[in-house]
C-alpha cells in the first residue's frame, strides 16, 4: 500500500503559477488526473516524480519527501510524456539498461517486455518503432523493478484505438494488483473508461476530486447551450419551451438561429428530435455551443 500525498502544494515559474495550493492523496488503484492542456497536470506529475521541487507545500511518498531523494525510485515507475528515449538502442537493450540501473538484470527486463507484449519487436531499434510501440517500451522500462507506484503523463496521446485498449487493460491490471497508478489526460472519455477515481485540475487549481460518476453527473447536469437552425425556428422554440428540460430560448435574428439553454441534458437530447418530428419541423443545424473541455471544466470550478 503506497500513497502519494500532495499537501498544500504550489509551484510557480517566475510569475506564472502552474499549480496553486493543491492538496490531494493518491492511493492504490487507478486514478485519473484530468484537466485541459496547460492546467498544470505535467507540473504535478513532475513533482510526484521528483523532477521538480514544490515552491511551497510538500509532496511525499508514504511520508518521505520525493524531491532530492533518489531512493524513492525503487518504488516509483515513470512513463514520461516526451518521446525521446535513446533511439539508437533496441527495445531490449533499452529495457535491460533500465533494469541494470535498478540493480537488476536481463531476466527482469524480459519479464517487463513480456508484460507489455513487446517481445516480438524487442531486437529492433527504437527509432523504427511506432508511437504505440514506444509507449509500451516506456511502460516496460517503468515496470522493470516491479514498482508500487506508476506515474504516466498523457500515456494515450497519439495511440490508435487498439493500442489504447491494450494499455488500458494493462493499467487496469496494475491497479487491480494493488499498485498506485496515476495517469494524466485531457480527454474525458479516456479517464471515464479507466479510472474510478479522478482528480480534476483546472488552471492550476484542484477543481474536483472523487468518484467518477459523481463528477460525470456534475458535468452532464450543468446547463448545456445549443445553437439550432430549423425550417421553422419560432414553432420549434414554442414547442421546446413547454418542456422543463429547456430553461431558456433566444431567437437570434442576426444569425437566423435559436440559442437554447437546456438544464436536463439527457432529456433534452431525446426530446429535440421527437418535438421536431411531431411538428413537421426540419432540423438544419444542432450544435452544442459550449462543449469545449475548457467550458466543462470552468463550470466544474464554479460548482
Amino acid at each position, binding site marked *: 500500500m503506497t500513497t502519494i500525498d500532495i499537501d498544500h502544494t504550489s509551484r510557480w515559474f517566475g510569475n506564472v503559477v502552474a499549480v496553486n495550493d493543491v492538496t490531494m492523496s493518491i492511493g492504490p488503484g487507478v486514478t485519473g488526473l484530468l484537466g485541459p492542456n496547460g492546467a*498544470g497536470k505535467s*507540473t504535478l506529475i513532475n513533482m510526484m516524480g521528483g523532477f521538480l521541487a514544490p515552491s511551497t507545500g510538500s509532496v511525499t511518498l508514504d511520508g518521505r519527501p520525493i524531491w532530492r531523494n533518489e531512493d524513492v*525510485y*525503487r518504488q516509483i515507475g515513470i512513463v514520461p510524456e*516526451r518521446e*525521446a528515449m535513446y533511439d*539508437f538502442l533496441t527495445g531490449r537493450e533499452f529495457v535491460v539498461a533500465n533494469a541494470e*540501473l*535498478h540493480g537488476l538484470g536481463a531476466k527482469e527486463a524480459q519479464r517487463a517486455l513480456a508484460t507489455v507484449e513487446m517481445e516480438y519487436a524487442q531486437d529492433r531499434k527504437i527509432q523504427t518503432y511506432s508511437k504505440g510501440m514506444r509507449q509500451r517500451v516506456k511502460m516496460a*522500462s517503468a515496470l522493470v523493478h516491479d514498482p508500487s507506484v506508476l506515474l504516466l503523463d498523457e500515456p494515450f496521446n497519439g495511440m490508435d484505438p487498439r493500442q489504447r485498449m491494450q494499455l488500458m487493460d494493462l493499467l487496469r491490471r496494475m491497479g487491480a494488483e494493488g499498485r498506485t497508478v496515476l495517469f494524466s489526460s485531457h480527454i474525458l472519455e479516456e479517464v471515464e473508461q479507466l479510472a474510478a477515481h479522478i482528480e480534476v485540475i483546472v488552471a492550476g487549481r484542484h477543481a474536483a476530486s472523487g468518484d467518477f460518476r459523481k463528477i460525470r453527473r456534475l458535468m452532464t447536469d450543468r446547463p448545456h447551450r445549443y445553437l439550432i437552425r430549423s425550417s421553422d425556428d419560432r414553432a420549434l422554440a414554442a414547442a421546446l419551451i413547454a418542456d422543463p428540460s429547456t430553461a431558456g430560448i433566444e431567437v437570434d435574428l442576426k444569425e437566423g438561429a435559436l440559442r437554447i439553454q437546456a438544464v436536463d441534458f439527457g432529456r433534452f437530447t431525446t426530446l429535440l428530435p421527437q418535438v421536431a418530428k411531431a411538428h413537421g419541423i426540419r432540423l438544419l443545424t444542432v450544435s452544442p455551443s459550449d462543449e469545449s473541455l475548457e467550458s466543462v471544466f470552468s463550470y466544474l470550478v464554479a460548482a
Partner: protein
Amino acid sequence: MYNPTVARLTYRALLGRRRAAILCVLPVLLIVIAAAVRSFSGADDQVAANLLGGFALATMVPLIGVIAGTGAIGPEIDDGSIVYLLAKPVKRPTIIFTKLIVAIAVTMAFSAVPTFIAGMILNGNGQQIAIAYTVTALVASIAYAAVFLLLGTVTRHAVVFGLVYALVWESLFGNLVPGARTLSVQQWSLALAERIGTNGFITSDVGLPAAVVLLTAVTVLATWYAGQKLRTLKLAGEE
C-alpha cells in the same frame, strides 16, 4: 561512483555514426598535415613544435573536448531522455562522474592518440616533442572534458559557449592579451609540456605548480557543480 550502464549508454550516444565522424575529422586532418609536412620539408623540430602546439593543442584538443564533453550529457538533457537515468536509485554525482570518465576517455582517444602519431610522423619524437605534447593533450583532455560537461548541464547552448571559450578566449584573446593566457586550460597543460620537452621548444605562461593546482581545482569544481546541477535539474519543455 562509476556506473557501467550509464557509461555504456554514454559511449553509444557519443560514438554514434554522425558524432564519431565529426570526432574523426580533426585527428585525420592533423595526421594528413603532419605527413605532408614531413614529406615536403623533412624532420624539423621547430615545425613539429609549431604544428603540435598551434593546431593539435590549440585547436584540436579543445574542439574534441567540446564535442565529447557537451555531447556526453547535453543531448540527453535537451531531448529529455535523461529522465530515464534520473528516475533511478542512482546518485546524481555518480551519473556525472561516470559521464566525465567517458568524456575524458573519448577526448583522450581522439586527441592525445593522433597528437602522438602526428608527433612521431613529424620528427620521430625528437627533443621529446611528441611525448611532451601527448602528455599535454592527455592532461588537457581531463580539464576540458570536465568544463564542457559542466557547460552541458547548465546551458542548452553548451556547444556555442564551448566553441567561444575554445576559439575566442583561448586562441584569439590568448594570442592578443597575455593576461588571458593565465586563465586557459591550454596554458596550464603546456606548463607540463614545457617540463617534459627539451628547453626552448615549448613554453607556457604559467608555472608548473600553479598549473597543477588550477587544473585540479577546475576539474574538481566543475564536476562537483555539475553533480549539484543534475540534482536540481528541471527538464526542459514543460508547461
